[in-house]
């Protein structure tokens, strides 16, 4: 009985090698512009078509899914490329979200002439506004913090963990514990963080009335543009020398070290960038959905951030983002109508996608093709093509 069965081959993590130089001109032309063309098509669909054809309600939902898509961009970089199982993305999503929410609450309070946000008045916070709330009244500071805060926490944790060569499993468990600890802490600080209820009931967004549907549409466009820009940035990282180095670290960390690189720094960059993206996603989630709460950032949602990327294909940027959007859509659609069924389906998705299709749906075509031509494979890999 075999106990260590060979895992199904992961999706090729590298871009397919450039075709031989004698490709016809048209083919080369298409190959070269395929990515920008697909990108442009996506941009037109997201920014141009979607706001025209979708109702206010559906566009709002799409805005929420796109926020999960932004988190998936980072997950794809850190996990898909770097092999770092980031199970604590909820922490960074939450830090970004709370930073934004705190500013919006303070701005709302200022607009009605109060000094304290409504929920603090309700709980009767003594001693006025806590000191760590005060700087968030400044919009520039709050905006910066939505990204800087998560990145700083990730840098600190990552530097400690990667420098000491803590194993991947430890890293995953520590990330989860961090997500749990932050959620528990937020629940415990009812008077200053809103506790279980979180922060909600935002009226304005940098001077715009959030109750006005046209402004909700504006928020959607901001989110869509952010997603597109971050995907472009991540793609640049994927195809850059850094992207190749990241794969090398995932393959054999020690070997990279003997070549004169410090793998801890290589991993740290991916981890911190992913954290920044999650933070930005959290910040954009707040005006789009109107709430940030501990239930959105604990262990369960943190693993949820990963599942979308796993289903779509962790190593494929587009696959991860589409997977995250699709899973978020399925969750919203099914979990109300059929809550028990959705939980089973979600569990099954984990088992099937991660266990049997580690490359995700993005690798389905490759896997099928490989199966069909498995007899030719031996010759193909051994033969030398010139």
């Amino acid at each position, binding site marked *: 009985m075999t106990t260590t069965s060979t895992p199904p081959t*992961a999706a*090729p*993590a*590298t871009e397919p*090698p*450039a075709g031989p130089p004698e490709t016809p001109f048209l083919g080369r032309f298409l190959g070269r512009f395929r990515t920008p063309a697909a990108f442009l098509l996506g941009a037109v669909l997201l920014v141009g078509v979607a706001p025209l054809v979708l109702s206010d309600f559906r566009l709002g939902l799409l805005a929420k899914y796109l926020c999960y898509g932004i988190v998936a961009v980072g997950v794809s970089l850190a996990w898909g490329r770097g092999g770092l199982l980031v199970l604590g993305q909820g922490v960074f999503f939450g830090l970004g979200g709370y930073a934004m929410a705190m500013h919006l609450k303070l701005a709302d309070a200022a607009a009605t002439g109060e000094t304290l946000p409504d929920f603090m008045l309700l709980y009767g916070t003594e001693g006025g506004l806590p000191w760590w709330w005060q700087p968030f009244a400044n919009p520039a500071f709050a905006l910066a913090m939505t990204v800087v805060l998560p990145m700083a926490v990730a840098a600190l944790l990552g530097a400690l963990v990667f420098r000491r060569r803590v194993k991947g499993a430890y890293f995953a468990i520590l990330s989860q514990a961090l997500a749990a600890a932050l959620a528990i802490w937020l629940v415990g600080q009812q008077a200053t963080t809103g506790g279980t209820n979180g922060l909600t009931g935002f009226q304005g967004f940098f001077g715009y009335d959030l109750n006005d549907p046209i402004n909700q549409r504006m928020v959607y466009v901001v989110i869509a543009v952010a997603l597109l820009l971050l995907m472009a940035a991540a793609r*640049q*990282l994927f*195809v*850059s*020398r*850094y992207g*190749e*180095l990241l*794969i*090398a670290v*995932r*393959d*054999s960390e*020690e*070997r*990279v*070290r*003997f*070549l*004169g*690189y*410090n*793998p801890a720094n290589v991993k740290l960059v991916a981890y911190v960038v992913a954290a920044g993206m999650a933070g930005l996603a959290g910040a954009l989630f707040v005006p789009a959905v109107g709430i940030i709460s501990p239930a959105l950032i604990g262990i369960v949602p943190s693993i949820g951030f990963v599942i979308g990327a796993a289903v779509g294909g962790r190593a494929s940027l587009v696959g991860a983002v589409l997977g995250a959007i699709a899973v978020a859509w399925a969750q919203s659609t099914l979990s109300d109508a059929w809550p028990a069924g959705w939980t089973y389906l979600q569990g099954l998705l984990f088992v099937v996608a991660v266990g049997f299709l580690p490359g995700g749906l993005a690798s389905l075509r490759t896997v099928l093709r490989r199966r069909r031509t498995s007899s030719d494979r031996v010759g193909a*890999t*051994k033969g*030398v*093509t*010139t």
Partner: protein
Amino acid sequence: MSGEGLTVRDLRVTFDGGVTAVDGVDLDIGPGDLRFLIGPNGAGKTTLVDAVTGLVRASGSIRFGGEEIIGEPVHRIARRGIGRTFQTATVFEQLTVEQNLDIAAGAGRSALTLLRRRRNVPESVGKALEITGLTALRHRPAGVLAHGQKQSLEIGMLLVQDVKLLLLDEPVAGMSHDEREAAGELLQRVSEDRTVVVIEHDMEFMRSFARSVSVLHAGKVLSEGTVAQVQADAKVQEVYLGRASEPEPSVAVPVPVPAPVREEV
């Protein structure tokens, strides 16, 4: 440039459990030397190389090119120009041959260079592809290469890394006679402008290509000198090299067992 010299003084490595693997080794390897480290299994050869490359904690002194390197992290030592191979070839299986070499060539790259796409490869990469005969396979993932090709790729990576000191752990293990000859000639060529240290169990190979030899036994240097000097040393014959004086290797003198693939790496 003819490489840098390595000077080791009173090197000791003790593992957690109290096992002393290297027990006061002194070693002088001059620039441009082609030094073979031999000795029975467990003599401390691989641990010595581990200590020089910073993989295990050691006490004593290791000077490379006149500077103390003991206690430095692995990647710093590598940047000083010390490269190594392992008993089993380690390449980045998910990357292409060319990408493997490009990464080896680029330890000093700036952040800005790293963030850009690889448009062309450094000249040294092209040269290494030629020397190792891998040019035709440059776009293949390294994972699908045959065992020998992986070993060639690994040596190619050391070449583009432009190391001054090369530490090779059983580079010809599992090779046929002809492949050994070719590998030995490659070593001699490489050592023209580099210092090379080879751990080897194959005495035939050692006799053909070594410029100097150190015999390790139980964590200490037992004997040192040219191949002839070492073979003439009574102590060495006693513990190890018995078969050098025999006409046929098949005679019942203790013969060094060809190293089985150990699980250290």
